[in-house]
């Protein structure tokens, strides 16, 4: 399928990653370029349905997801960045796998084939499966013991409808530890960030976010690293605690360790400026020259 040099993926960014969290998108592109993972954005993708379509009209949500699946070329894995989009796309795909009638109905609807064998994976999974040796080669800067809380949020952590499928735990710790950062235990890694309630019921979300950040502070972390763009936003905008911590997208920390240089544009979009922390740890500026192997 893929040559060992250049790995091809279709890429589904999702609305949040494409707009509010553009910094996550840019840093991901940088990281993938350095790692030799070639991402081809899914042509004319649409919203996966988000929480709202699934709350109000699950059938509409399902149809929105299947359109995206009908656009995906079958010969390469579909890489998804947003955990909620991943959940919806996978769920829809699983339903169609288990019920071919459903799949054929959707193929008629879109006038395009939908491959039952399409692989749908999160970026973390792609990295663990295809990128570990590349990571070793690409890493130009140790993370100098940056103490982070790996914050997965709720959706990557075992939604019951997919309980026989893969779920994610410890990937961020493993990868970032290999790059020289230190995971901190004892914080709320899987606590829900508030999702859409952050927009409509901020008063219910703020105490929750403060609890999450507070748990990270008392665990002695410098920052949180999250795999979800919406979590990143909610943790930043809804935190009213005096002691705020920078919240990184996983792709930002990864790209930084891989030596990406255009981080200014990402970090200025953060509400809690992470640059003082990174400066303090000597993680900004040009990476130090690699020790030459005799």
């Amino acid at each position, binding site marked *: 399928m893929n040559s060992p040099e250049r790995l091809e993926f279709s890429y589904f960014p999702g609305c949040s990653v494409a707009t*509010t*969290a553009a910094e996550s998108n840019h840093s991901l592109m940088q990281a993938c370029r350095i790692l030799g993972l070639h991402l081809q954005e899914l042509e004319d993708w649409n919203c996966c349905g988000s929480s*709202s*379509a699934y709350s109000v009209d699950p059938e509409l949500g399902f149809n929105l997801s299947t359109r995206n699946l009908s656009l995906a070329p079958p010969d390469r894995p579909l890489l998804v960045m947003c955990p909620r989009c991943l959940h919806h796309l996978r769920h829809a795909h699983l339903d169609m796998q288990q019920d071919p009638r459903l799949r054929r109905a959707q193929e008629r609807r879109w006038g395009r084939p939908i491959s039952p064998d399409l692989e749908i994976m999160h970026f973390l999974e792609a990295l663990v499966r295809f990128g570990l040796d590349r990571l070793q080669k690409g890493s130009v800067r140790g993370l100098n013991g940056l103490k982070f809380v790996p914050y997965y949020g709720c959706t990557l952590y*075992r939604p019951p409808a997919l309980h026989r499928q893969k779920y994610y735990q410890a990937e961020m710790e493993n990868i970032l530890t290999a790059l020289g950062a230190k995971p901190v235990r004892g914080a709320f890694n899987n606590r829900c960030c508030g999702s*859409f*309630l952050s927009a409509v019921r*901020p008063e219910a979300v703020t105490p929750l976010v403060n609890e999450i950040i507070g748990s990270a502070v008392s665990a002695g972390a410098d920052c949180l690293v999250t795999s979800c763009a919406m979590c990143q936003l909610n943790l930043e*905008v809804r935190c009213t605690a005096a002691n705020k911590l920078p919240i990184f997208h996983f792709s930002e920390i990864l790209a930084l360790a891989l030596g990406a240089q255009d981080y200014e544009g990402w970090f200025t979009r953060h509400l809690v400026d992470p640059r003082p922390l990174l400066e303090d740890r000597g993680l900004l500026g040009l990476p130090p020259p690699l020790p030459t192997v005799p």
Partner: protein
Amino acid sequence: MSPPQALSKTSEVAIVSEFDRHFASEVNRRSHTDLNRCYQCRTCGNGCPFVEAMDYPPYGVIRLVQYGMRQKALECATIWICVSCHTCSSQCPNAIDIAAIMDTLRSLALEERAAVATPDILAFHLEVLRSIERYGRTHKLGIMLRHKLLTGQWFKDVDVGLKMLAKRKLDLMPSRIKAIKEINRLFLPYWRV
């Protein structure tokens, strides 16, 4: 924490003959889970991050369904507050997919035009759908502005909105898909497709 108000209303009279005997099986069938396994251990209520914003805790809603108290279950705020974070389901000793039950109750509530306890949350969801219908993607600034217009709460949360604008997190123009007709079709009644 004192028990949620709804559960302490002991003076209320429930007329057993008016209960819907088939409600539980209907909800089970639609949500692909088995709520009869629930033995009211209340773990879901202890884990739920939003239980304080709810009128019934998750186990309370399950109890309403088990008893067949259709109207109470469909008109409670809990089904709209739930964000499907699955904390309850992952802690449930009987592996009940509680979020799927909430999804089902929400759909039933809309189908049967039950009174919606949290009209602001429904209005938000409809705004998101409107954005998807128009652009194929969500346009956050448009959604928030229209939501404020409809709920009249212009000044709630202005500081956060301004901060997000200043950080260029809210795009002024929506990102649109090309084949918007394919999306529009999903929103048409079936007899016009």
